[in-house]
Each structure stands twice: as structure tokens, then as C-alpha cells.
């Protein structure tokens, strides 16, 4: 059976932070501990494309076994449980106590070691980048470390006969549609209509007892995280100030408000 691995990250919902929350601490991090967590949007699309690929491949009698892996704390297990309910076979969490959101080399290193040690995967899907770290290079580095080809900005994946897959990705020219013989790493970009499916309550109940496998970073690396050579290191973090005068027109009727807008701002400009 062919194997597909969905890699994802649970991130803080950054849109819930208010302007005054954007302050860097002494470790060049922003305190996001008080906001709720969410799927990284590009990873969410990647997982949905994985689920659809698996469903479609059943009609070709060449089904995929689906695994999901995330590097994160215990909160991530709630998300892995959701994926269990959506049909994932194996849900894996890699425990890493150090802050690695600005260390794509370590993230790709841990994913690579997991794949090497816990079984070859035919297809590895993940989002193009995460909202917080925004390095935009974890899929490419993972592909290089595994020696796999990599396709970026993927928006659709379809199963083909003889274990091949058809991939649609956005390029500078337009859409590229290619048939690929795996293994490969696919980085999912802005893929419209790919919000993650919601499992039924019944599916959640049925998979409730299914365990999440947990590995520590140390177990996978057989050494220290510091052994992985970093390419870059974050040395300074500052809030972006994009304030304008921010006048608000709210008094009077709509007609009166538009009169003010027109006379003070729009007249002669449109």
C-alpha cells in the first residue's frame, strides 16, 4: 500500500492579538500563549488535499495509507485526534521543548529523521509556509535532505494509475499540470476551497481511543538539536508600525457620512 504523510503545524491564531500585544521578549519571541490555537492555513489545505487524494485513490483500487505528523506540544494532540476521526491511520507528535519556529533547518531535520526511521513515505505534503515563522523553506529543505523532488505552490493532487499522481501547481506562467512518479515532497500553496473537512461525532467517538504516537526530538536525532547547523538566526524582532491617521466617520446619516467622505477625501480623486 502506498503511503502519504501530511505534516502540519498548530499555531496561535495571530489575528486575535491586539496591537499592543506585538512586543518581542528577551528571546526574540512574541507571547502568544493567551490566544487560541489553530491550524496553519497552508497545512490545513495540504491535509485536505491528502484526504481527497486518499478517497479518490480507493476507486482506482490503489489506496493510500495516510499518516500525519506534527512537531509541537500536547495541544497538538487535539488536532491529531481530529485527523484520526477523518481517517488518518497513524497520528504522530514530535515533542520538542525548544522554540524552533525560526529554525526551518531543525523542523526539516526532525521530519526527515522521522521519515527515515519510521518508514518510507511515497508522498509528503505540507504547507508552503507557516504564519509565525514564515521561513518558506521547510518543504524544500525536507526534499533536499531526503533526496526527493519537490513541487511547490501545489493546489490539487489526483491519483493516477500505476501509482503515479497528477499535480497542479501555480507557477509564474500559469498553472502547471504534471504527472509524477513518487516519492516526492509537495508544498501546498493558496489552494481555493480546501478548508479541512469536519469529522462526524460518530467518527470522533469511534476513534477516541486511538493512540497518538509520541517521539521526542532527542529520540529521532540521537543527539542534540544544536547538532543541526542553522543557516540563519533571528537576532532582532520589532513591531511593524503601519499607522495612518485613522479618522472614523460614524456620525449622522449614511448620506451625511458619504458627503463628508466625498468632500474631504474623494473629490477630484476618482
Amino acid at each position, binding site marked *: 500500500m502506498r503511503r502519504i504523510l501530511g505534516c502540519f503545524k498548530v499555531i496561535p491564531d495571530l489575528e486575535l492579538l491586539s496591537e499592543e500585544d506585538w512586543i518581542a521578549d528577551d528571546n526574540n519571541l512574541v507571547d502568544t500563549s493567551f490566544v487560541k490555537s489553530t491550524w496553519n492555513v497552508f497545512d490545513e489545505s495540504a491535509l485536505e488535499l491528502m484526504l481527497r487524494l486518499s478517497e479518490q485513490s480507493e476507486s482506482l483500487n490503489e489506496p493510500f495509507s495516510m499518516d500525519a505528523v506534527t512537531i509541537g506540544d500536547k495541544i497538538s494532540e487535539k488536532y491529531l485526534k481530529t485527523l484520526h476521526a477523518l481517517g488518518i491511520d497513524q497520528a504522530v507528535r514530535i515533542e520538542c521543548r525548544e522554540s524552533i519556529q525560526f529554525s526551518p533547518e531543525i523542523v526539516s531535520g526532525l521530519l526527515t529523521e522521522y521519515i527515515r526511521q519510521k518508514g518510507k513515505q511515497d508522498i509528503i505534503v505540507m504547507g508552503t509556509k507557516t504564519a*509565525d515563522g514564515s521561513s*518558506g523553506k521547510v518543504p*524544500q529543505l525536507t526534499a533536499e535532505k531526503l533526496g526527493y*523532488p*519537490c513541487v511547490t505552490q501545489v493546489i490539487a493532487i489526483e491519483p493516477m494509475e500505476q501509482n503515479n499522481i497528477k499535480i497542479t501547481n501555480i507557477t509564474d*506562467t500559469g498553472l502547471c499540470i504534471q504527472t*509524477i512518479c513518487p516519492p516526492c515532497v509537495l508544498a501546498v500553496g493558496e489552494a481555493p476551497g480546501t478548508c479541512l473537512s469536519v469529522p462526524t461525532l460518530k467518527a470522533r467517538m469511534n476513534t477516541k481511543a486511538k493512540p497518538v504516537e509520541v517521539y521526542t526530538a532527542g529520540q529521532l536525532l540521537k543527539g542534540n538539536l544544536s547538532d543541526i547547523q542553522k543557516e540563519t*538566526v533571528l537576532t532582532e524582532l520589532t513591531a511593524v508600525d503601519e*499607522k495612518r491617521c485613522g*479618522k472614523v466617520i460614524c456620525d449622522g446619516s449614511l448620506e451625511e457620512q458619504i458627503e463628508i467622505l466625498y468632500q474631504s477625501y474623494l473629490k477630484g480623486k476618482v
Partner: protein
Amino acid sequence: MKYQIIVSSIGMDVKRQFEEISAFIKASSLEVEKENTIIISDGKQDGDDISRLTDMAPTASVIFVLVKQYNPESVLNVLETILKKDNIFLFGSSYLSRELAPRIAYRMQGASLIECSRLISESGSLYGEKLVYSNHMQGRFEILKKPAAIVLAKGIGQEKVMSGKEHEAMVIAADEADPSIFLDIAVQEEEKENGFEHADFVLVIGKGAKNQDTVNQLTKTGEMLGAAVGGSRPVVMNAWMPMNKLIGASGSFASARVCIVAGASGAPALYGGIKKSELIIGINTDEKAPLTGKADVTVIGDALQVMKAIEEKILYEERRDG
């Protein structure tokens, strides 16, 4: 340490990339010589075009990497032979660059930084700045290894290119994609949405529109007023507008005289795409939306009702003025 400039002519405007790289170099406090320019091309240019592109280049030495059909694997193999270990590689802003730069840096045991807005040299160390935390924060990263593969951030300004003298062009043909892996490749060329960049008046529709019908009505209203109409990420992800209408970090950038943002909260990813506009007008039901502080003026109200009222007012004034 020298620069090597890497741009693509595959679906990209080469002159524009050179101008952005010139602006980037000017903004960066570095005094480094330029070594050569590498143009990745799909061979669609005839001889005259190769000569024209060569003359445009900011360096005397230009290398064309010709591909029949772009495939990152075969281009990487060529780049490995022509890029030099101690250099800084400046990649123009494109999907192709974001795909290639981290991989070539890894292969050459160097470092990469994607979406970099500026390079700084301080006390013998090299730093690059880029936006992180969904564009809420700017990070300064020390680049620890050589070579440094830098991909320019989108929307960097443009600067006239001082082209190199006595150009010398060399052409290297890349192998075709490995047929045992890439069994079939076809490209559906899409018309690019270039209207936003040069539009005087832009209307951006946000998820506050709530449905396809409202998006259609807002689009009609915007077009009636002569605006180029685009959407925020949630709008295109819901397929209420096509992908090429996306405004923001992953889409088009606007630098309009007037930009109206109707029903969008003003997330940094969107704001990045409109911040160069002269006048930003927000329309939002929530006075506390982040856009309010980043706009010049905000009307509190329903996006469609306010836009209709603006349309009526402008048309009335036009009729009155004859």
C-alpha cells in the same frame, strides 16, 4: 564576496526584476561587487530577445540557463555549476526563486532567506530583514553561512538599472526533466492580473461581503466607478473571486491614488498589498478592526450599502458637473 543575480524570464518581466534588485541593493548597506547575471529562460525568446535581455542586465557577464520546459530539478543541477561558494545570490521575486533558492543554498552548504527586504553588513556579519508573524513583526536574521541565497520580498521599489558595459552572454542548456519521475508536464498559461499595480483607483473586497452575491454586487459597483476590483484571501479562498484577483502578500500589490477596502479587517497580509496606496479608505462594521488605524479614513457601516452610497454620490456629482 560578490553578488550573482538570478532572474527568470519564464512568465516574468526581466526588466522589472532588475529594477527591484537595483532598489534592493541601494537599500542594503553593502559594498559588494556584482559578478554576473543568470537569466533562467524557457527558450521562447529569439536571438534578438536574448541580446535585448543581455543589454538590460546590470552586469557585463550574463549567463542564460535555457530550459525547454521549466523543471526545478534540472535547473538546480545547472545552477550548482555556475554559482560560486563565497557569493551572495540575489534572486528576483518569483515562485521560481522561492522554489530554487533554499535548495541551491542547501546543496552548496550555504544559507537562504526568503522574502528579504534588505541586507545589512555589520561588524563583519551579514544580516537580512524580513517580515514574520503574519507580517506583524520584522525580524533581523544573521546569515551564518556562505553562499547566501536571498530571495527579494515582493513589492520592493524600483530603481533604474545601470546596465553593464560590453556585455558578454553565454548560453547553457539545462537537461530536460527526468522522464522516469516527471512523466508528463503541461502548462496552462494564464493571463496575469497586472491592472492593480497601475490602477489609480482600487476596490478591495473582504470577507465581510459574506457571499458570492454581495461580492458580485460590490464588483459591479466598483467597476461602474472605474476601479480595479480585487479581493482579500478569504474571498478568493471561498472562490467568490478568481485567484488572479487576490490582493496582498500572496497576490497583487496596489499603489493606487485611492484604495477602498470594503469589509476586510485589514490583516497584515492584505495590508502589505495596499500600503503603498496614497489614500486608504476603509469600510467596516467594526470600528475596532485593525484596518481602522491603518487607513486614512474609515466609514463605519455595511460594505454594500456604503459602496452604493459612494456610487450614487460620485455619479450625482458627475452629472451635476456635466
